[in-house]
């Protein structure tokens, strides 16, 4: 019998028992839908975290001031005042360092026309966009001259500009920070990312200006260091450690008053955790797929039993074992594949709902779709072969006299 005829046979058979067909497919639908939904949510979370981490800057080392120590009491992280602007300048002269962005930050009230907002004001230098991977959307960034001359100029983060109702025309206009007038010279491109501590909600002013007007000290909280290439990360990290230990008179092996955070380490840790999460979720969901497959096998076995006489008739009128085998196998395959396709639609719908309701990012890649389809086909074959071969092996005499 031709394959197209066998397919027609399977489809018409499944069409005559719609309720049973639907219930049998339900197991596969639930299995595939949960694989698709869980994996896409997990991958969405992963890519969200990764892009957030990458948006902090690539090849980034962050030198943070340590806690101040007075007597036996260690102060809060960043409370030490030993990390200074001069340290940053010294680091910038090391080989392999592409840029250095010291940060002095404070919280301040920013007023533009009738809008006002309390936000993070960061004093920094011209390397800041390079180090932290920002793009300039409008205008220009702080230059060396603005630092040298303590100019009162500001560059706004995208969210801040939005909140203050400042657009393209805002370049060249004035805002006030804690009452001091500043001229807006640029607006940054949005990085995205939402929630707590958005990277787009900040105002950048020259480091020297920030020190004079708001902070009044030469120490900085942190220094971002952009390394020229990923290979040099380790070398540069140890060079900075040696350099700062020398400058701060700390013996090698002594307690440092600074820490160096490595972006790439954080990234690889996060991605391995989220890969584990994805595999785990997919594994749990796969169990329901297998249960669905057993459901198909169960129904196919019942079906072979019920249709024993039909099988006998088919054999009497010329069906070979192969024809009967394929007839039942194709039925199982159609069941599992149709269940798989419906499951994908349901799974995508569920993921989109989760994304909308919980505000989580979701990600679909072709694999998320292709793997469950192939998997459900495999399930159809694995769990369909046994009932089908039972049907094919039936003795026509016995089958014909089966009541």
């Amino acid at each position, binding site marked *: *019998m*031709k394959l*197209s*005829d066998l397919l027609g046979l399977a489809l018409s058979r499944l069409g*005559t028992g719609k309720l049973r067909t639907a219930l049998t497919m339900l197991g596969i639908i639930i299995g595939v839908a949960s694989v698709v939904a869980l994996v896409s949510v997990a991958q969405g979370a992963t890519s969200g975290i990764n892009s957030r981490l990458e948006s902090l800057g690539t090849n980034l080392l962050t030198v943070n001031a340590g806690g101040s120590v007075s007597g036996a009491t260690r102060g809060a992280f960043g409370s030490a005042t030993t990390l200074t602007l001069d340290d940053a300048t010294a680091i910038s002269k090391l080989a392999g360092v592409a840029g250095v962005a010291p940060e002095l930050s404070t919280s301040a009230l920013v007023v533009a026309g009738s809008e006002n907002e309390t936000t993070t004001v960061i004093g920094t230098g011209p390397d800041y966009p390079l180090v932290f991977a920002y793009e300039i959307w409008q205008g220009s960034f702080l230059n060396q001259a603005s630092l040298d001359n303590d100019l009162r100029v500001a560059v706004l983060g995208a969210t801040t500009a939005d909140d203050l109702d400042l657009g393209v025309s805002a370049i060249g206009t004035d805002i006030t920070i804690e009452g001091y007038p500043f001229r807006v010279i640029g607006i940054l491109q949005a990085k995205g990312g939402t929630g707590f501590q958005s990277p787009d909600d900040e105002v950048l002013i020259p480091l020297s200006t920030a020190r004079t007007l708001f902070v009044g000290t030469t120490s900085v909280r942190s220094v971002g260091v952009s390394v020229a290439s990923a290979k040099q990360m380790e070398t540069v990290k140890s060079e900075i450690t040696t350099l700062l230990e020398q400058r701060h008179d700390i013996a090698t092996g002594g307690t440092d008053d600074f820490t160096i955070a490595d972006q790439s380490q954080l990234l690889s840790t996060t991605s391995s955790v989220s890969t584990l999460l994805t595999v785990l979720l997919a594994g749990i969901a796969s169990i329901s797929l297998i249960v669905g497959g057993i459901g198909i096998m169960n129904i196919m076995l019942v079906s072979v039993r019920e249709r024993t*006489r*039909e099988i*006998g*008739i*088919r*054999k*009497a*009128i*010329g*069906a*070979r*074992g*192969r*024809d009967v085998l394929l007839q039942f196998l194709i039925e199982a395959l159609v069941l599992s594949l149709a269940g798989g396709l419906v499951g994908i639609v349901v799974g995508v719908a569920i993921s989109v709902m989760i994304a909308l309701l919980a505000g989580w990012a979701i990600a679909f890649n072709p694999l998320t779709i292709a793997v469950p389809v192939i998997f459900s086909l495999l399930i159809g074959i694995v769990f369909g072969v046994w009932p089908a071969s039972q049907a094919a092996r039936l003795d*026509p*005499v016995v089958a*014909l006299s089966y009541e």
Partner: protein
Amino acid sequence: MSALALPETSNPALAPTEDPIIVLQEVSRVYDTGRVVVPALVGVDLTVPRGDFLAIIGPSGSGKSTMMHVLGCLDRPTSGRYVLDGTPVDELDDDALAALRSRSIGFVFQSYNLLPRTSALENVAAPLAYQGVGHRERTVRAKAMLDRLGLGERLDHEPTELSGGQQQRVGIARALVTEPALLLADEPTGNLDSHAGAEVIDLFHELHDAGRTIVLITHDPDVAAVADRQIHIRDGRISV
């Protein structure tokens, strides 16, 4: 046990013919259940020439069903030789047997054995599908066969929507659609009222007149009487 050992020459079942459609030589079929050994056919010799209309008569338990299964290539003899339409059956595997059934035999069953939830047209087209005939051609041939048997108006009806006589005519159409060398009918009138039964018998006469070879298996001497030739089967042995 009445073992009638007639001299071979006087046995019309062994009448020599040229190119016979069925040749059984010393065919036995023994069921071995492990505890009991049941001989269903014992040393059967039978030759059926082309164009013959033969009735095999026997009470239930006589080995008549086994005879039908062996003749129909649904079962193999335990020993002996069976040549159907020039092909020695005992040398064939299951698939080759299925191909031989498909090519050479048309079955007509007592309980019709139509495929459930399948239209008359598709029932008749099914044997052609197993021969690999394309959809268009088998529809044309099945439709023509149903037309010839007066069921041209019932093409889309499923078995449950047809009377017994109509179902049996669909069954006969299905048996004939492949133009088989042998029409093998097992109690074809057994489930029919006398009117419908007579119609089926008339149909068999027509087919025989048209040159078909028919083997009719029945327990009913009145039905067997319509055949040209009758042989009796009892306790697995045949006699005239």
